[in-house]
């Protein structure tokens, strides 16, 4: 019975729609609860309801993130920050650890298959992880409403990038720049979809590295992970093939988020009751998401993710501006 359901694309679409409705219903429900009893105290709700709800929501987020081709962190922070009673400091700390756990789990496989490139990742990671420390410190020092407003604006920017950015499977890089040549940032991987070995190189390395300063600061400040920005820069600007860009971006998060996570950890902005259910929920959701990935229509999922981000970005922006408390 279950196998039959899993093999039917229609059933999958239905499951995804039901999950989305449930998730939206849940977060909207939390919004009304929060409005009735603002943080920090939620006296009418037993403590265990929150971590349990968090587990269920992150489980669904894990599925949606895989199907939508985004990291869990970018969905986690605005949704949990907007609709749960936790302070944004703890949500961002948890968001970084959620993104970190996902990247650590994916890293070994991507590195061994030579899809994530250590030669490409290491120089980029040095820039991004240094910047992420600065971002984390800024984020923890700023007032909550300012961070919330900036988060909302950033999420809306991400929506714009996701809705408009093109992707290039095999960008044309006729002349690699001097820096990438001196660092020998080049590679070769097996592209199974065309049955060929693909050699790749990159260009515009200094510009790309400069952009990773901005990406690192934003990753650290908002605890978002940064796949949404890493991939366009690696693929469209620097000219790495799409698969190499996606895989290297995922691996890169394990380094960038590590540096920012330490700042949050040392500051005490890591609440185990938020972090652990979230990590477990999103990882289990990701496993289920990978299993159903082959049966779904990526475009429909992409627009669902964009819709979710738009909603939660607006929520964060309006919450930060004091319009939607």
């Amino acid at each position, binding site marked *: 019975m279950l196998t039959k359901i899993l093999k039917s694309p229609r059933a999958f679409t239905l499951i995804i729609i039901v999950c989305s409705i449930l998730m939206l219903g849940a977060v909207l429900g939390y919004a009304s609860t929060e409005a009735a009893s603002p*943080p920090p105290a939620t006296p009418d709700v037993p*403590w265990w309801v929150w971590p349990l709800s968090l587990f269920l929501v992150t489980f669904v987020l894990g599925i949606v993130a895989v199907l939508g081709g985004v990291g869990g962190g970018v969905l986690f922070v605005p949704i949990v920050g907007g609709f749960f009673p*936790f302070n944004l*400091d703890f949500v961002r700390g948890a968001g970084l*650890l959620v993104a970190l756990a996902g990247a650590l789990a994916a890293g070994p496989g991507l590195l061994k298959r*030579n899809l994530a490139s*250590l030669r490409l990742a290491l120089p980029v990671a040095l820039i991004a992880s240094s910047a992420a420390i600065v971002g984390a*410190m800024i984020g923890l020092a700023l007032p909550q409403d300012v961070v919330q407003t900036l988060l909302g604006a950033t999420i809306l920017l991400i929506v714009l990038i996701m809705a408009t950015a093109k992707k290039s499977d095999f960008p044309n890089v006729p002349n690699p720049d001097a820096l990438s040549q001196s660092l020998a940032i080049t590679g070769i991987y097996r592209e199974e979809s065309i049955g060929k070995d693909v050699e790749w190189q990159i260009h515009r390395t200094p510009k790309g590295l400069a952009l990773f300063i901005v990406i690192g600061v934003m990753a650290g400040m908002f605890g978002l992970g940064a796949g949404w920005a890493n991939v366009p820069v690696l693929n469209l600007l620097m000219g790495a093939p799409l698969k190499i860009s996606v895989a290297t971006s995922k691996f890169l998060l394990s380094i960038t988020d590590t540096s920012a996570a*330490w700042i949050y950890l040392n500051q005490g902005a890591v609440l185990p009751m938020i972090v652990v259910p979230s*990590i477990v929920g999103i990882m289990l959701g990701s496993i289920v998401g990978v299993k159903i990935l082959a049966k779904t229509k990526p475009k429909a999922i992409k627009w669902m993710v964009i819709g979710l981000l738009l909603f939660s970005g607006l929520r964060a922006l309006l919450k930060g501006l004091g319009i939607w408390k």
Partner: protein
Amino acid sequence: MSNDRTKASEEQIAYANILNVGMWIGLAIVIIMFFVYISGVLPRFIPIEDLPKYWGMKVNDFNHTLNAPTGWGWAAPKYLLTGYYVNFIGIAILAGLTILCYAVILPILIRKKDTPYVIIAIAEIAVLALAASGILKTGGH
């Protein structure tokens, strides 16, 4: 079919291997410690049922109200052996794993005389060690 040309480099495989083992160990410890925390085996730094009073606070207010440690203060036995801070062991392992991975590939890069990447790896270890050290503090608002 893949061939030697498409194989990952020695340092890339070494990094992947240590990451794979460390990630599973860290994740297992995170989950085990969480069950230790909620089981009530260890004395609690904050009673779980009181958490909703505090989780809406800014972290600096949270630390001030509960007299909570910052930096590596949580690793002192006084805190570590409580149901709350015991969770930090697994989290610190996950957060520390990347430093270990860099330390593992550094000798390989040195042996290969890959000077630019030796410098990059050393610089990254220094950056991550600085972040982990607890020296960098935020003033809060």
